[in-house]
């Protein structure tokens, strides 16, 4: 008799029959293993959650009083007939790939991940497996990222020029992950750094769990931006171009995202500067990550799935598409949880 697969794909999300749990489910379930705290992966209303200790504080902050069990990277927990462990995904602080072993067969759910260490979160570690469920948000050969140091130098150069011309540099970035990555890597000697409320809330949670971030000043109705000349303002993407920005006087706007690699998208976004900076893997990254798992079966989620699957088949993999409700790196859709957290 054929064995059940380690994971199956249901309309509630990725399910493990042997352990009776879901990974990043999008409808309420009894037990949910969560790769990371972004809204499309960590949803409300599950009965029990499991995540890494570093991912838990943000989840609690955003989802409220949830029952959450933590499992440090590399430790194994038995759930029903499955052995489960979390491994760094390099996406945002606390983000994990989830390894699930049932009767000697190993499957790994990547969640969102990137390869290059970013100086903020635990660097990505490849995990050997038989089947790999990978994101492919940027799974096209046109997406390749320059080294982080180069992008940060571009951001620094832009900030410096803005400061010299008396403009405020306002950069749009996700409240969890991208904002702190910029914060942790820009040249803080250029000037003060102001943060949008939603971002500062996340900063506070991360600082409280021991992650070192440079000093920031929260933008509030009472503060006067004129007291902080030459500042870099880190804003949520949805705050760019809204009346919230008026207080800063003359501004130059920037936007940090993998999508900025495409000139057309950059122009539609109508920011003055686009910085190609993503917390997802690029083309070379996703291909090397898959190769390093040693997996023969690959399931692809969010992104250019049908093209990427064909490419993997060409390379000799048994590749399939998994329909999910993960949104990948979205340019415009604000993370609704973050936006209400002002």
């Amino acid at each position: 008799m054929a064995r059940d697969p380690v994971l199956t794909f249901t309309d509630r999300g990725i399910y493990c029959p042997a352990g009776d749990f879901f990974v990043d489910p999008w409808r309420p379930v009894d037990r949910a293993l969560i790769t990371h705290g972004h809204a499309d992966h960590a949803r409300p209303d599950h009965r029990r959650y499991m995540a890494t200790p570093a991912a838990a504080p943000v989840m609690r902050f955003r989802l409220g009083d949830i029952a959450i069990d933590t499992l440090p990277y590399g430790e194994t927990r038995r759930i029903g007939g499955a052995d489960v462990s979390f491994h760094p995904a390099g996406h945002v602080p606390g983000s994990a790939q989830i390894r699930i072993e049932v009767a000697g067969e190993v499957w790994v759910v990547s969640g969102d991940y990137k390869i290059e260490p970013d100086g903020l979160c635990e660097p990505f570690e490849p995990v050997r497996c038989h089947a790999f469920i990978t994101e492919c948000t940027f799974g096209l050969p046109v997406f390749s990222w320059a080294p982080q140091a180069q992008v940060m130098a571009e951001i620094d150069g832009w900030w410096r020029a803005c400061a010299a011309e008396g403009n405020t540099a306002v950069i749009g970035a996700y409240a969890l992950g991208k904002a702190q990555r910029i914060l942790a890597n820009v040249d803080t000697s250029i000037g003060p750094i102001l943060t949008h409320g939603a971002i500062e809330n996340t900063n506070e949670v991360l600082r409280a769990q021991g992650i070192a971030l440079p000093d920031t000043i929260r933008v509030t109705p009472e503060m006067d931006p004129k007291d902080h000349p030459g500042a870099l303002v880190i804003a949520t993407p949805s705050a760019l171009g809204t009346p919230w920005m008026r207080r800063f006087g003359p501004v130059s706007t920037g936007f940090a995202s993998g999508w900025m690699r495409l000139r057309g998208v950059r122009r539609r976004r109508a920011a003055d500067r686009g910085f190609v900076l993503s917390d997802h893997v690029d083309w070379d990254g996703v291909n090397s990550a898959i190769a390093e798992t040693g997996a023969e079966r690959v399931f692809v989620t969010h992104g250019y799935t049908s093209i990427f699957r064909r490419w993997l088949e060409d390379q000799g993999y048994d590749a399939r598409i998994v329909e999910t409700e993960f949104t990948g790196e979205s340019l415009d859709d604000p993370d609704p949880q973050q936006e209400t957290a002002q």
Partner: protein
Amino acid sequence: MKRFADLFAQLDQTTRITPKVAALAAYFQDAPEDDRLWTIALLSGRRPKRTVTTTLLRTWAAERAGIPLWLFEESYPIVGDLAETIALVLPPATRGSDRSLTDWIGVIRGLSALDEDARKTAILSAWNSLGPLERFLFNKLITGGFRMGVSQKLMTRALSQATGIDEAELAHRLMGDWTPETTSFDALVLTHDPAADLSKPYPFYLAYQLDDPPEDHGSPGDWHAEWKWDGIRGQLVIRGGQHFVWSRGEELMTDRFPELAAARDFLPDGTVIDGEILAWGDGAPLPFNALQKRIGRKTVPKSLLRDAPVIVKAYDLLEWQGEDIRARPFADRRALLDRLVGALPPEAPVRLSPLIAFDCWDALAATRATSRDKGAEGVMLKHRASPYLSGRKKGDWWKWKVDPLTIDAVMIYAQQGHGRRANLFTDFTFAVHDGDALVPFTKAYSGLTDAEFRKITAWVKKNTLERYGPVRAVKPEHVFEIAFEGIQESPRHKSGVALRFPRMSRWRHDKPVEEANTLEDLRAMLAAYGQGGKVGVDAVTPQETD
């Protein structure tokens, strides 16, 4: 090329006009003269002749990137631009280069003398010595379609700032049949002799749509009205025993419309007429697709000359007896035009576009409502005293188009957009009810706001029923109002109709699917509006015609 790439980056990095013009003006002061000339050429739609086919470029790029050609081809529509796709897939360059823009254009032009292997070597070597942005620009120079986010108007303004020459004068100098090979920066821009170029048209005067009631613009007695024909706006230039036909897009179209050569038999040298090129038969415009067939052909077969003959409907007179009369009042120019064209015999390919008599605005509104029957898309209002200005200006001229036709339809298929909209669903197919079935009848791409496109994109992702390659069948759940300019019978389409310029004018959140229109409604519209002889095919590139 670095200086040019810097300029491009500066223009690309801001959406504000002032810094764009300043960057360009600085470039016109400090770039090498040949590069300035080429930049003017590129920004006014001129480019070097294509010396490598895009098929070869794609093949070489895929090969160099180490990816199969199909993967390159799948990536291209997502990026939306061939030059950019090539630049993005290639591995980083290993060398640098200090060659100027003009030098690189020389390399591209030199390719035509080489065999295929040598061309490939030259291209690969160029790709390997250019930075990412320079490489994109190099590819753009080969493939054409240069867009730098700067209109010709802004370019002219920058050049005016850099040289101190009046903007309108410069606009005129930059028109005509020149290329960087046939002139120099000095001859074209600085020491310009207008008599040197017989073919040169005048910059077109373009009108804005009238949005407020005409009463707000004063007394009817101050205004002339005429039909706004739906053809190709153009200028007919007759000088030195020759004639030249220019489109509004500054394309020389003389050879496409050989029947207009007969104008020389009826009009004297030193005449420039602004008018509308129309396919014409039996005293009315032929359906627009008749003209479309003509636009597509560089040489015209006899059968087409017979089936879709063109004429110029004359709106205005810009040059009379060799004199530029654009500064004179419209009423005076129009009177001269009348004398010149009004009495021509029917075999002349130039006809007067008649003025519409009206004594009050209500009367004009009533006439305008009959535009579709006339084969016109509305009326033009021109102030009696208006000079012929250059470019799109408010105040003296207005176009007053008829309202579009509309129908409420159900979205049934969705497809991802390209370029600017690569990560959004923007291309949709719409259907009307036919009994229990939904019959697709049109596609539409435009009309929604970015926010609406984002919303529908999120919805499509969650409500896909089936995929056919890039096309997704979605739940028939949303109703949109589709606006269009015309409708005509089309046996090629399942629905039997084709629309002209369809777009989404409104997302009808308020309408359940059951209340969308029916095929019967569509056929009724065909019966009511389809005979006007004005409509054409869908899926043609909208030809801006004012």
